[in-house]
């Protein structure tokens, strides 16, 4: 692998970034856009986190003390929407922007102007959505899954703005996905064959195809809501021949692939990090690729496991139950490969590795509770309880979000040119680890005991575990301010990072200097 470094000093056409705000407004540079995505995502993470803390404060003890039930419902809804569409997805797109061109040896994303556009839609989409909280009747209060008729017949008037906001996010995601696919398929450096691509690139290629397949379905379902509300159609109204259960089918046809959109890039990230700190190549690279692809294919065949209780025929319950359990096979292959990569490796536990190891363990716990939920007969007991909340928070918080933290620490020296503060990083990890488990583990117990989700008040027997969960949530929430501090400190200065940063790091991005120059790989590198 020959590193092509910084050849732009003698080239008049390449100069550094413009100055001031217009640099960010007009930029077509994948690194600038990646950074904007990441900062946007972190802002949304704090906003959605504040809403979670409103929820946990209300649930600290039984009874209604802080917020009114309708506002509580708006908080659960907005928390979910902001975390899914505003925090997790943009963070992965930001990482894709920063890393994919550097990993495949391309000078930039394939369609840089569209890239600018796909980012700048997002702040407008989320301003529109958050503004509904201040409108008459309040913001969306029907849960992030916005089931009809709650989101149509009984929705607050602001639902129309919610629909347009979802449309805008969808357009942004689709454009981002097209960009990723075009970059990966067309702009790889000579010698970078498909099966030599880093796992992060592979997982994003597959994720991008999922996005292109299901975001239009989401756009379709909110369009049906729009016409049901305003133009007299009856997609989901039984009196006109429609069916509210249809909403759930169409929504989850989008929604289940969506949950893999939020986890496949995480798989890619830990598949980069674990080999580095094990000082061994990734175990079973090809099986990782095939496992990721089969998870993506299976994700289209399992949507109805979210709706076992709507009154499906037995054959349907059985099909969706077994299809769901089948997903445990490729996922198990991945977990096996991560563990095998670590086996007999020279392990060190820097912050990215700590987050990655915690990812493997805690994501697996979330996967197991998912298997429990996949059993149709048992699901009748678990459906819509806190057990479900515990399950999807285990796969999303110590799953997706831990992987994003891991990625941030791992590539931060490459982005800023400085090492982050390792002591503070480890402190951030341990506080987050304790906070996450304190928050979400007790939810398994109250869920199994029958506490329903999305309620502002609960029966007295759930009081103790809820108090523990609330304490954990405030610990986890405030810890993230430490992360902000660590990142800012690392941007400002610190120990100089070398080009390869980590002793065992492999890949094209480690052949360019730290911080990565504004333009990289203007001449493609040669990959052997």
């Amino acid at each position, binding site marked *: 692998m020959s590193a092509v470094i910084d050849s732009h000093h003698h080239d008049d056409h390449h100069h550094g970034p413009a100055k001031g705000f217009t640099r960010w407004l007009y930029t077509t540079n994948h690194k600038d856009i990646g950074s904007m995505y990441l900062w946007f995502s972190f802002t949304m993470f704090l906003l959605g986190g504040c809403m979670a803390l409103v929820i946990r404060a209300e649930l600290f003890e039984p009874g209604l003390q802080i917020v009114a039930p309708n506002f509580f419902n708006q908080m659960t809804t907005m928390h979910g929407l902001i975390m899914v569409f505003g925090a997790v997805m943009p963070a992965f797109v930001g990482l894709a922007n920063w890393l994919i061109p550097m990993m495949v040896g391309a000078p930039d994303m394939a*369609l840089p102007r569209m890239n600018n556009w796909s980012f700048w839609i997002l702040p407008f989409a989320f301003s529109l959505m958050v503004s509904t909280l201040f409108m008459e009747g309040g913001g969306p209060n029907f849960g992030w899954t916005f089931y009809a008729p709650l989101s149509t017949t009984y929705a607050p008037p602001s639902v129309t703005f919610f629909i347009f906001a979802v449309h805008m996010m969808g357009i942004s995601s689709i454009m981002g996905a*097209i960009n990723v*696919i075009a970059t990966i398929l067309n702009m790889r450096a000579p010698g970078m064959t498909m099966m030599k691509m880093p796992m992060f690139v592979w997982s994003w290629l597959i994720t991008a195809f999922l996005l292109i397949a299901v975001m239009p*379905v989401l756009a379709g379902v909110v369009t049906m809501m729009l016409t049901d509300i305003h133009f007299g159609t009856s997609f989901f109204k039984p009196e006109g021949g429609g069916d509210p259960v*249809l909403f759930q089918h169409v929504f989850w*046809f989008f929604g289940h692939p969506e949950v893999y959109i939020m986890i496949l890039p995480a798989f890619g990230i830990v598949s980069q990090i674990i080999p580095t700190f094990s000082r061994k190549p990734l175990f079973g690279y090809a099986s990782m690729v095939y496992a990721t692809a089969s998870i993506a294919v299976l994700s289209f065949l399992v949507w109805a496991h979210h709706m076992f209780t709507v009154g499906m025929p037995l054959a349907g319950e059985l099909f969706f139950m077994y299809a769901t359990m089948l997903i445990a096979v490729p996922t198990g292959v991945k977990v096996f490969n991560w563990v095998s990569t670590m086996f007999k490796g020279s392990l060190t536990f820097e912050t990215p590795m700590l987050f990655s190891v915690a990812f493997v363990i805690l994501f697996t716990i979330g996967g197991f509770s998912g298997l429990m939920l996949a059993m149709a007969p048992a699901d009748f007991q678990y459906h819509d309880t806190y057990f479900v909340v515990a399950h999807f928070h285990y796969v999303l918080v110590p799953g997706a979000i831990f992987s994003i933290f891991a990625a941030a620490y791992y590539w931060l020296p490459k982005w800023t040119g400085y090492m982050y503060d390792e002591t503070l990083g480890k402190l951030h990890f341990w506080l987050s680890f304790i906070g996450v488990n304190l928050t979400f583990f007790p939810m398994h117990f109250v869920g199994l005991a029958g506490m329903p989700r999305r309620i502002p008040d609960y029966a007295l027997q759930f009081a103790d575990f809820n108090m523990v969960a609330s304490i954990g949530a405030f610990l986890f929430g405030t810890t993230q301010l430490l992360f902000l501090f660590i990142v800012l400190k690392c941007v400002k200065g610190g120990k100089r990072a070398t080009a390869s940063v980590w002793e065992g790091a492999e890949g094209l991005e480690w052949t360019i200097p730290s911080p990565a120059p504004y333009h990289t790989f203007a001449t493609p590198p040669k990959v052997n």
Partner: protein
Amino acid sequence: MSENNEQPGNSTPPRSHAGTVRKLLFVVVAMFGFGFALVPLYDLFCDITGINGKTNGRYEGEISTAVPGEGESRRVVRVQFTTSNNANMPWIFNPPENKQMDVVVGEPVQVDFFARNPTDRFIVAQAIPSVAPSKGADYFHKTECFCFQRQELEAGADTLMGLRFFIDRDLPEDIKTLTLSYTMFEVQDHAGL
């Protein structure tokens, strides 16, 4: 997937971007259409399988008048009627006097549902049927039903609404009771659809 080994460079972006984008946009449009195609597909699927308790429309098949021969038992099924109003529907809507009856399979039955409009305005309504257990829905044949069309009642008026049905002889043996439920919806948009 071809390997574009020679091409990539800053100055000459590979020509294939436009082609890639065009193909991907086609997928996007197709999937948007697929979302809407799910609507008729779903109805078709429910019709074929009878799941969701959706009863079919008017029964158009042969009505057997054959009387069971000697020794053939007259199979009897219990049929129950329930009614309910959707939210904000002001009508009084009642099932027949006999809320349940024993019906001989294959024999036609006629019952009347009662509705009264206690408000001071004209209301158009639509009744939506559902059969439980849902796998019995395909064997519940309606030859005449008030649910086939909308019901209109002037302020204060009342009416009896007829239902004629028979139970198919092929009704699975394990079904002993069928519950037919109607939900009455107010149709807000009279002109629509």
